[in-house]
């Protein structure tokens, strides 16, 4: 490297540093407090910890870019220990004690619905890190969701099956998350011309699902859907040598599960949103910043939390830091292009994520590779 190029690089680095400092220096005044509830401990920690990372990074990024009209934001993060009762107490503290202007999270559906019982009547905007849950959530027009409804997850599985021309599909699903997706999958399968030749359910936390996997194999499907939050069914499917393509729902897309699957993870296809190893152009800045900060590759939940924080900051910039909850809520409803997906919170499902936001990855040697397949809107 020549001296002049070193000088140019140093100059550029200094410029970036200075501009960052200038941007940081722009924030002044009392921070705008935003509350967040995640499941950092307990059964939901696999979601809550990445979400907390995403929130902390977003806070840093928003403040480095001048905050909200020059005022910094402060995200106060609380842990609900994966317990809806605790989430309720934390929400009361954040809203009435700490006087936050909006609430991000929680990580789990039960906590989200419980917290919505406080945010909705008190007109506090909430952006949950879950897909829409029971019917009552459709009435809560200021409780937005940054993850897709289960119907959309079911649709994405079927789109992939259609793309590989599989018309006979076997399903292995757990009794919790898998059951909810399955309820949406059944009526949709007919529309896609897909016949569900075997549907086998297993208990949450089951340590062996070989019997169910064998029944699916016996039905001779052309592809197998696995809808669960566990690595066990993937290992069992490999053990009994099911050779057909395996398509996993987003629930088991984290590195944690893929590592637990071991060699059984190879060739599994997953409809999801963020492939950190090969991000889409609009995801690259987030992925690079995340890798730089945490020295690891982000996935969907980090991006969902990052998006939620940016959406609320954008709404605050638009409506003003002192805007009422209702005004903030209105501002939040404008279409937003996020890292995870494109959102439109005025949609009926309080998410508005289009199927075209999905990317489809395949696991090769424990790493995710993004396939060229996308669904047009």
């Amino acid at each position, binding site marked *: 490297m020549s001296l002049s190029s070193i000088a140019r690089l140093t100059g550029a680095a200094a410029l970036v540093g200075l501009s960052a400092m200038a941007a940081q220096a722009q924030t002044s005044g009392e921070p705008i407090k935003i509350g967040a509830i995640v499941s950092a401990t307990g059964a939901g920690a696999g979601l809550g910890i990445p979400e907390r990372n995403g929130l902390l990074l977003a806070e840093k990024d928003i403040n480095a870019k001048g905050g909200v009209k020059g005022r910094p934001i402060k995200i106060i993060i609380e*842990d609900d220990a994966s317990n809806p009762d605790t989430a309720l107490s934390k929400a009361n503290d954040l809203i009435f004690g700490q006087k936050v202007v909006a609430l991000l999270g929680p990580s789990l559906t039960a906590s989200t619905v419980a917290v919505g019982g406080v945010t909705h009547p008190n007109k506090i905007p909430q952006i949950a890190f879950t897909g829409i849950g029971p019917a009552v959530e459709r009435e809560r027009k200021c409780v937005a969701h940054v993850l897709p409804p289960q119907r959309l997850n079911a649709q994405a599985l079927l789109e992939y099956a259609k793309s590989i021309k599989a018309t006979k599909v076997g399903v292995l699903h757990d009794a919790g998350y898998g059951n909810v997706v399955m309820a949406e999958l059944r009526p949709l399968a007919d529309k896609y011309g897909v016949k569900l030749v075997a549907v086998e359910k297993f208990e949450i936390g089951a340590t062996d699902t070989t019997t169910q996997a064998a029944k699916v194999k016996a039905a001779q499907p052309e592809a197998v859907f696995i809808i669960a939050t566990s690595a066990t069914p993937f290992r069992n499917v490999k053990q009994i040598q099911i050779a057909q393509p395996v398509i996993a729902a987003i629930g088991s897309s984290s590195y944690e599960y893929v590592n637990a699957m071991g060699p059984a993870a190879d060739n599994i296809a997953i409809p999801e949103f963020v492939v950190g190893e090969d991000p889409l152009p609009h995801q690259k800045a987030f992925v690079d910043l995340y890798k730089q900060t945490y020295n690891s590759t982000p996935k969907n939940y980090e991006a969902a939390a990052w998006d939620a924080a940016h959406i609320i900051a954008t709404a605050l910039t638009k409506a003003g830091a002192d805007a009422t909850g209702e005004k903030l809520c209105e501002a939040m409803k404008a279409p937003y292009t996020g890292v995870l997906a494109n959102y439109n919170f005025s949609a009926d499902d309080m998410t508005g994520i289009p199927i075209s936001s999905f990317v489809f990855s395949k696991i090769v040697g424990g790493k995710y590779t993004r396939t060229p397949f996308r669904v047009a809107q």
Partner: protein
Amino acid sequence: MQSRLLWIAVALVIWAALPFFVPRNIADLLVFTGIYTIAGLGIGLLLGHCGIVNLAQATFYGLGAYASAYCTVMMGLPSIVGFVAGAAISMALAYVIGRPILRLTGYFLALGTLALSAIASALFFEWDWLTGGTLGIGGIPKLNLFGFVLDRPSRYYFFVWIVAFACMAAAHNLVDSRSGLMLRAMRDSSTAAAALSVDLQSLRTRVFVVCALFGSLAGSLFAHHASFVSTQSFGVDRSISFLLIPVIGGATSIPGIVVGALFVTFLPEFLSKLGDIHQILFGLALVAVVVLLPDGLMGAFGRLRTRLAARQGNHAR
């Protein structure tokens, strides 16, 4: 006597004033303390007076909560119907299950109740047509007393605690009654009690049914407070935390149940400020209480009082 009355009056004034002076999240925790006190009372009766370890209280708590949720949300019935339906189903189930399993004793009985809790937890998941499964049932209305809506913790606090005091009075009467004497006789020596023609099984079943009633009441109160019920609130872990209430507070003491309920609601909240290790710290605190204070916090308090009184007596001499 007069000083005792004065203490009671002061305690009542503090109780009545508390929700007006504490932040909303503390009022919310006090509501949960009341709810857990009711659920813990039943366990305390079984543990302290019958020597039975009940690990199935979350089942009755769940039945009460789901009955209230289903009756009000799915059927549009008044809240009282949910309370009554939950109590009736819980008591009937406790009777039917209690008759056979209460023949067991010691660890086997504890395991029997644990099995009941595990089965109920699985059914709450599986019967999603009734319970909403993983998604649960949301939109449970707040209680409305003659047009006065109990829609915030400071209001609900009074209702929950009045119910809790009524349950405490009922438990006190039971312990002080002829049945209470029989219970203690059975706990201390079941053979001797049987020789005195105490019908052990019937007595145990009756207390198990009362315990289920308290559990169901607590569950219905929880449903109307949280406005949402899902399987996550009624797992085996919840049964264990209910059992901790009398173990920590003191199983034979009714005020001890309140102390135990305060411990399991407030301590995790305060420890959560210390970061992700809060659950480990809570575990350590539990171990410390169980090892150092085997008869609970109220037992330790009682011993301290006796020791102080003895010391004062010595000084007087």
